[in-house]
């Protein structure tokens, strides 16, 4: 009997691997490595469409370090040029060049006032935060994963992710709150090889599912992983330099 159980267990564990199918956990680890490198520096363009049809576009440089530290420099348009944002854990400061002063701001979860959540861009660690389960996918050539939060600390209660079978890169995602309502949905496109052997979607469109007319788009122009990000760059004193 025990031998039989063991055999079944072996089969369950080894089964997918034997068939060449990655496990949900492997897929999540791959997603984390691609979408949320531990340290990176990126040039990107963010455009937010509001419910009245108007849109605003920003060019920004982002530097992300370990331990949930990040900095953002706004480069265009002229109205926000020179503004900076520093995040260390749950604390956020905005630096306004006209005042030459850093102001601490309430920690809104929205990324730069758009429809991205900070966790969508700067704190991607799905393998650690969520338990993944593979489910049948209705999108051809993709795997579908259902992610359920392991703790109450995560930004979402559950996430549904569609990943390409060819390379495991994301195609689309849906994000749900505790009540089960869909809060946001994302579409990934423009897959681009930023560094040798490192390909990721350059464009992410995030839709606000509570207000359908609101969406934000993030286009990554360039991205370098493993840059040096010394701790002193993530202090208030460094703002404006």
């Amino acid at each position, binding site marked *: 009997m025990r031998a039989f159980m063991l055999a079944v267990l072996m089969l369950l564990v080894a089964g997918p691997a034997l068939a060449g199918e990655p496990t949900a956990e492997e897929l999540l680890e791959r997603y984390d490595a691609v979408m949320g490198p531990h340290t990176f520096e990126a040039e990107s363009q963010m455009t937010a469409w509001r419910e009245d049809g108007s849109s605003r576009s920003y060019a920004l440089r982002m530097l992300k370090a370990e331990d949930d530290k990040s900095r953002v420099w706004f480069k265009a348009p002229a109205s926000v040029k020179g503004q900076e944002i520093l995040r260390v854990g749950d604390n956020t400061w905005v630096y306004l060049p006209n005042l030459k002063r850093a102001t601490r701001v309430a920690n809104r979860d929205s990324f730069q006032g758009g429809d991205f959540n900070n966790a969508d861009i700067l704190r991607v660690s799905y393998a650690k935060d969520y338990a993944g389960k593979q489910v049948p996918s209705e999108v051809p050539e993709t795997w579908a994963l259902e992610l359920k939060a392991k703790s109450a600390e995560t*930004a979402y209660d559950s996430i549904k992710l569609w990943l390409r079978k060819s390379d495991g890169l994301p195609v689309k995602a849906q994000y749900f709150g505790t009540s089960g309502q869909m809060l946001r949905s994302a579409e990934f496109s423009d897959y681009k090889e930023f560094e040798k052997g490192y390909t990721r979607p350059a464009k992410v469109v995030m839709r*606000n599912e509570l207000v*359908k007319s609101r969406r934000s788009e993030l286009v990554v122009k360039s991205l370098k992983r493993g840059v040096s990000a010394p701790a002193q760059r993530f202090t208030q004193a460094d703002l404006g330099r």
Partner: protein
Amino acid sequence: MSSFLRLAVRNVARNRRRSLITLSAVLLGVTAVLVARGITDGFLRLMVEDVVQGRTGALQIHPAGYLASVEALPLAPSLPYDEALRARIQAVPGVAGVTGRLIFSGLVSNGVSQTTFLGRGLDPARERQAVPRFGFEVRAGGRVLAPGDHAHALLGSELARSFQVVPSGQEGEGQGDRVTLAASSPRGRANSLDVSVEGLTESSLPFENKRVVTVPLKLAQELLGMEGRVTELAVAVEDLGELERVAEGLRAALGPAYEVHTWQELQPFVRDVIRRQQFILAVISSILFVIILTGIINTLLMSVFERVREIGTLLAVGVRRRQVLGLFLLEAMVLGLGGGVGGVGLGGVLVSALGRWGIAIDNLGTGGPIILRPEVDLSFAGMTFAVAVLGAVVAAAWPAWKASRLNPVDALRSN
């Protein structure tokens, strides 16, 4: 002395027209001060009642450090909301009732647009214990949150208008329009819930009409993942005069993990408005008194100049200088007493009549009229009366002294 009093009364009655004008100046001045005070008191009472009985409660309890960072509406640390803590609070002498609330911020949307809101999660079963006028701000047609409500909400009137939301009960049958409330738990977990709009709230603070969404406590706790927790406890006291003592009692009973604040500390805006009103009233009263006293000085100076020969005669037949002084002071006192009694009487009648009818005034910037009921403050009326009489006597001091210093020979010879 009584003959001097009779003399004083007769002297006042002699130049009837002038005395009447002075009397009516005193009378109208006292009346005006009393009516101004009555209206101010009525207005302030409205504000205090609005705040204490309809909004904050007399006292509030928060986790230590809450008020220092109230702008950020911190959700952590929070307070437990259970029988044990409520019993500890109820046990403090002077506490009349206690209720728990969850104050939070989030985004409200109707599917087309989205805006930030200030959420108030209230316990419909207990809210009335702490704020007896709970629900007074619900606009006609809507309904107050009741125990058993869950996915229901009241929206600030301006907020509802900008969202074109119609509450239930205003479009015939069926449920009200629905909105989605989105907020994050203290640890950052996003969540959203649909609620039906049951009514609109109308506040005297314009901000609240644009931003406030009122929901049952249970729904707020579910939205924020804070089951069994609240961010504030509102406490009613038996006697507002004992406010500070009850606050001290609560501080002693609860210890340093909690902070206890009175409504004045919680609503500094209202407290400042009250202080400003009282200052303005004091300035108006002083101006009125200066006018009254100038009138009395004028009247008495004129009567001194008119009656120089008479004063000379009085002094010549052996009346003492201090008796002359006293005579004029008595005349001033008669004027002050007459005007004071009349003024307090007329003012009292006017204020109580206004109190009975009520004055409908437009609620600050929100449209709906509220009824202001002026009231007579007896101690203030007594003080006004005393100031009128004493003021008249003090104002008469100089003319009276001048009269008593006349040289009888010169006075008799003058024309």
